[in-house]
């Protein structure tokens, strides 16, 4: 066995013994450390995953959407504007979209009801058919070819056959989604044939969007154009703002942890000082003592970091971030529940490690170094 390898093995062995001898202190430190990492990583994972969801949701959305405004509020838009918009130079395709919300009194859940766009061959429906998201499947205990019953707000009961279940990349987009045919949609919401919720535009060249928006403003008075990047930016801002707010609120506890960790990890007890003196007197070099304490710091911090990370992963992606859900999702509690798709940014994890593991290890090493470079004769006196 290589000498330096054996030496490190002995040092690690001694470190483990040393940690076990002070197991109470190390356990408290490990638990608090782990808790801090768990909370920080949960916020990070949740924020990142939901931002990723937003990206996925919007990936298939039209580059721009034209809405009709009445007194500054979004209102139905007349179908006559579809050919007008189609003729705007730079617009590849304009299509009226039908979507809305339905509150299901049976389950107390909000569903997003939508007519599939004409280009979506996979989800085309005949009247009387419906395709539903996994959240509705779970809530209503439905399977294919069974019937979904919905009561319209004017009292009529709609009987729709479940044609399929949605399997989307994003649970956020698919969980509460209910696709129905255009005739059913108009009947269900009592919409006349000449209106749409809004009009989606496919643009030939994304760089021309600002020019096209200008043209639309002239040709379709009273309209508002919302671009895909606007929506994405809004989502990102909302979730980043909430994440930041939560982290700021957690700031106090993080600072408390830093003080606590520094005090516990860095503050050497009389017993530890004596032990360092003994080790140096019997022939351990300063570097050996430092290596031992490095291993101790690394084991506590890396162990707590990894465990905190794994717990946060489970919390966010298996238990839907139950502890943070209300804070991060905010006003729009999404019914039914959805599962976030795991998405982790390596850079974020590395940053978190850098700002927790490195300071902790340094906090343990510096006072030990001070104690270890002094003459070991104190042990004799």
């Amino acid at each position: 066995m290589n000498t330096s390898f054996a030496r490190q093995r002995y040092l690690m062995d001694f470190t483990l013994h040393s940690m076990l001898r002070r197991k109470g202190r190390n356990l408290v430190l490990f638990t608090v450390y782990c808790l801090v990492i768990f909370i920080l990583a949960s916020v990070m994972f949740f924020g990142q995953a939901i931002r990723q969801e937003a990206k996925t949701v919007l990936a298939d959305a039209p580059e721009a959407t034209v809405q009709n405004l009445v007194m500054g509020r979004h209102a139905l838009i007349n179908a006559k504007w579809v050919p007008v918009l189609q003729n705007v130079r730079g617009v590849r395709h304009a299509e009226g979209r039908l979507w809305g919300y339905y509150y299901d009194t049976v389950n107390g859940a909000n569903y997003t009801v939508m007519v599939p766009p004409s280009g979506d061959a996979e989800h085309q429906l005949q009247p009387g058919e419906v395709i539903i998201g996994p959240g509705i499947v779970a809530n209503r205990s439905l399977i294919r070819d069974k019937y979904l019953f919905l009561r319209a707000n004017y009292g009529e009961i709609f009987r729709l056959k479940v044609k399929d279940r949605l399997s989307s990349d994003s649970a956020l987009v698919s969980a509460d989604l209910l696709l129905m045919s255009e005739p059913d949609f108009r009947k269900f919401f009592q919409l006349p044939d000449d209106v749409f919720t809004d009009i989606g535009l496919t643009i030939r060249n994304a760089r021309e969007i600002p020019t096209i928006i200008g043209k639309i403003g002239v040709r379709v008075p009273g309209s508002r154009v919302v671009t895909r990047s606007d929506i994405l930016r809004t989502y990102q801002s909302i979730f980043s703002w909430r994440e930041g707010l939560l982290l700021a609120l957690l700031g106090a506890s993080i600072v408390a942890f830093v003080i606590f960790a520094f005090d516990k990890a860095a503050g050497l007890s009389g017993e530890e000082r004596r032990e360092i003196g003994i080790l140096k007197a019997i022939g351990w070099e300063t570097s050996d003592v430092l290596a031992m304490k490095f291993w101790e710091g690394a084991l506590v911090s890396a162990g707590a970091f990894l465990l905190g990370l794994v717990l946060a992963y489970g919390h966010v992606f298996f238990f839907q971030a139950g502890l943070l859900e209300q804070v991060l999702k905010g006003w729009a509690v999404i019914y039914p529940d959805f599962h976030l798709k795991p998405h982790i940014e390596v850079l974020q994890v590395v940053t978190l490690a850098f700002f927790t593991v490195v300071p902790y290890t340094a906090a343990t090493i510096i006072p030990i170094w001070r104690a270890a470079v002094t003459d070991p004769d104190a042990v004799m006196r």
Partner: protein
Amino acid sequence: MIELDNVSKVYNEGRVNEVFALRDITLKIRADQTTVLKGPSGSGKTTLLTLIGCLSRPTVGRIHLEGKMVSGLPEKFMTEIRREKFGFVFQRFNLVRGLTVLENVMLPAYPLGLKYSTLRDNAERLLGDVEIADKAGMKVENLSGGEAQRVAIARALINNPDYVIADEPTANLDTRLVGEFLKIVEKLRTEGKSVIITSHDPRIWQADVVDRVIGMEDGRVIDDGIAAT
């Protein structure tokens, strides 16, 4: 051979609580001899022992070990010398609590990175030599004073040092245990090791096994010779 040339040691130099622990000590300590430093508390015995054992540096003067000046060496080399040349038996034994007897004995050899089986065999042999092999697996906090002392001696010998330094090794030990300690010292002497002991216990400095007794008072050597038996 250890040579001290006009060595002085001052603690808290330049402060109000400055203490002259040693003053102008010039001394030669031969190898393969048992030397006792005797004197009352505060006479400077332990301080002199820390200088001899490379545990600290003199404020003034030089120390040579086997012809090589060691008093001015950087810490790394001082540690190397301490590990290779000296074995220490401290007054309160200074065993590391929570570790077993065997682990305590092996501790000074960890930095050498020896094969574990070699290390364990050496430690077990030494525990056998000091007749405490049956306690190898016991935690040191459960040992009696005499047992702890023997473990401390075994630990001092694990790196096969030329010099064994013992600071007040028989303090708080009864006569039977002092006798056992002296037997171990005799054995070490027959093995050619130099033993340097501080003690104000007449049972030590009047023992047959002791070759030389150096009397100290107020940080100075006041007497140097063979103790009267």
